[in-house]
């Protein structure tokens, strides 16, 4: 075969559509145009022949083998996944979640119960714990203050607070 001649504008235009032409994916107008060009251009005819050769070369010579127990493996994996699916929190948790309205009612109910308990049960407990023991504890804590009760510092501060400021 001789050296292929340089591509003309017409050849370049046809070559871009040659693949689609071979696949039967060009419009009737393009098809007629390409066929007319191929009738007079041996280089483009050769390009089309090469394309057809390639298509034939892609034929499978040795068919691959599927695992004999392929379907059984898929079925067993599917069963495993279905079993896990029941325990999967992404599926189960949303189903367990109550509707937003129910959640709001539960929150209000919780607040109400909490308030009631504070008023009745906890109030009694607070009353009983305010005993002499607790007063002594509070007084002991007061000893750590910068001016403990009954100290000289407290007396000085008291004196300063009641003495009016004398302006010169």
């Amino acid at each position, binding site marked *: 075969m001789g050296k292929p001649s340089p591509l003309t504008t017409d050849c370049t235009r046809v070559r871009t559509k040659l693949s689609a032409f071979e696949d039967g994916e060009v419009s009737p107008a393009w098809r007629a145009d390409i066929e007319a060009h191929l009738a007079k251009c041996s280089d483009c005819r050769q390009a089309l022949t090469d394309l057809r050769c*390639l298509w034939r070369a892609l034929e499978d*010579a040795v068919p691959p083998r*599927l695992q004999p127990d392929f379907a059984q493996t898929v079925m067993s994996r599917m069963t495993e*996944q279905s079993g896990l699916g029941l325990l999967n929190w992404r599926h189960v948790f949303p189903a367990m979640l109550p509707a937003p309205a129910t959640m709001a009612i539960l929150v209000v109910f919780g607040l109400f119960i909490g308030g009631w308990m504070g008023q009745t049960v906890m109030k009694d407990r607070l009353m009983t714990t305010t005993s002499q023991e607790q007063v002594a504890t509070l007084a002991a804590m007061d000893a750590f203050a910068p001016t403990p009760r009954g100290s000289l510092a407290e007396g000085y501060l008291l004196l300063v607070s009641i003495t009016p400021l004398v302006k010169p």
Partner: protein
Amino acid sequence: MLLVGEGDTFAFSCLVHRHQDTVFRFIYRFFGKEEEANDLAQEVFLRIWRYSRKYKPTSQFSTWLYTLIANVCKRESRSLWRRNISLIGSFWISGSDVPEATAHTPSPEDAALHAEQSRLVLAAIESLPPKQRLALLLRRYEELSYQEISAIIGCSVSAVDSLLVRAKDQLQKKLVSPQK
């Protein structure tokens, strides 16, 4: 398929038997490895089971199936490990890489020649970028139209045309030209 969506395991089993070869062969051609094709084909069927409730009979089942297969292939080829391996493999296609097909060939000379041809074809296909490979396999072996391929890959018809032109051009350089 609608029965599968309702959780019918028998219908799913029938579906697996009917389409297992198609799914397996497609993935085998995409990656060129039997073991990997078996694993990924299983993954495709498990996805079918998982997403069967979302299947709408408005589109063809084959299109839906090929979209699932394409997604599995794309995801797998995107992983760093696979990308590196295919990158290394693309440097020597006509050389010394040995796909598994040769391991199962019988001794006669014809079978050996066919195995060699198959090895070259698989290696050449594997050297293509994933999108070009998908387009080529869908066109050459599944005989889908450009319109169907565009729906599966998620691009325009003209993009499919362009992918196929580039894929054929590369394959021609690797398969046909050296034999001349």
